[in-house]
């Protein structure tokens, strides 16, 4: 369809070069000129994941994840500041809720405009979901640890609170993901995750009188892990076959 070669049939010059495909020559030039050069992070991710496509999908998240990232940084930073001044480990209570929202937004329909097409790709929507969810979790964990370390300097039993929220965070993220994949809606997942976490915190407070009970009581670890495993299985089941855009 291209009109890149300007020769006219019958013109002696174009007869001489009739065996030269100028369109192909231009394509070769364009390939180099239009080429995108992946950044260092993407190249590293590509080697780690052993798939340049998966690395690109990971770092090219649907647009809502960037706002989420910004919101996470802001929320955790604010939480750290409050924790420093009041002594209440706000970061530990906020981190799981924020992570649940982010995880839900790594899932397709409603968030990814080209979702239908993504469901026909060799690098499957499920692989991309897994990698993105893990990345969201890892980023949240790192940010949370940084915020806690910043705010927790000098607190006793800091260890419990510094790491204690990681297990509930896993459970809440798994819940969020399960609801998102089953309901095929990222918003539903985010809402379920945040609501579930709020309920857990409040009921632990009612049960034990302490706000931080949800993250510090050792007895809760097993239930959290069971919830996490169950929800992860549900999410895996929901994504076992591709399910395109709802018609």
């Amino acid at each position: 369809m291209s009109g890149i070669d300007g020769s006219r049939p019958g013109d002696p010059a174009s007869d001489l070069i009739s065996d030269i495909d100028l369109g192909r020559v231009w394509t070769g030039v364009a390939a180099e000129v239009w080429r995108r050069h992946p950044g260092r992070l993407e190249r590293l991710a590509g080697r780690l994941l052993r798939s340049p496509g998966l690395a690109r999908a990971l770092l090219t998240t649907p647009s809502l994840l960037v706002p989420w990232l910004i919101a996470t940084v802001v929320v955790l930073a604010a939480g750290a500041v409050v924790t420093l001044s009041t002594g209440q480990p706000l970061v530990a209570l906020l981190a799981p809720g924020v992570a649940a929202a982010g995880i839900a937004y790594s899932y397709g329909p409603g968030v990814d405009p080209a979702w239908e097409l993504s469901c026909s790709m060799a690098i499957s929507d499920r692989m991309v979901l897994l990698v993105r969810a893990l990345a969201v979790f890892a980023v949240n964990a790192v940010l949370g640890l940084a915020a806690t370390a910043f705010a927790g300097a000098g607190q006793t039993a800091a260890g419990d609170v510094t790491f204690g929220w990681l297990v509930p965070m896993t459970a809440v993220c798994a819940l969020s993901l399960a609801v998102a994949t089953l309901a095929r809606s990222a918003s539903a997942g985010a809402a379920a995750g945040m609501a579930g976490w709020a309920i857990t915190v409040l009921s632990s407070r009612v049960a034990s009188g302490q706000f931080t009970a949800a993250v510090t009581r050792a007895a809760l670890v097993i239930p959290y892990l069971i919830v996490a495993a169950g929800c992860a299985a549900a999410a895996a089941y929901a994504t076992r076959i591709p399910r395109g855009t709802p018609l």
Partner: protein
Amino acid sequence: MDDDTLIARIADGDDMALRELFGRHAPWLATRLRAVLPAADVEDVLQETFLAAWRGARGYRPEGAAGGWLWGIARRQAALLLRRRGPVALVLPDGLAVGDEADSVVTRADLAGALAALEPAEREVWRLMYEEDRPVAEVAELTGVPAGTVKSRAHRVRRVLRAGLGGTR
């Protein structure tokens, strides 16, 4: 938009300008190269030429000689290709095989370009008198024109070639 502006845009990273430049100049460059190189090599040289133009556009001095600049790049790329390939079996008219073969080939390409500027009748005179080495009388008989006409055509041929091979184009 003139060539100088296009090249300035290319230096700024405008790939559309490169596409436009390609559309304007690739055909005649291909014709010149095709006179001395096989089709596949012409394609390779053209590709390298325009990539080199893309990368080196900043070094272009705008003085209205875009064609000459491009041809200069093409010659270098052709010579590079031929040197990489090793010895090439080519038929060259005697007296043109100076320097190494790669240079000879691109000189022949220059010659082809200069010859393209001639009228068909003049090109015929060139071929008969200089490539086939026939005397004026014989050429006059073969082409059916008076000897005087043959001589003036030959004079014009020498003038055009001198300009074509000696100048920037």
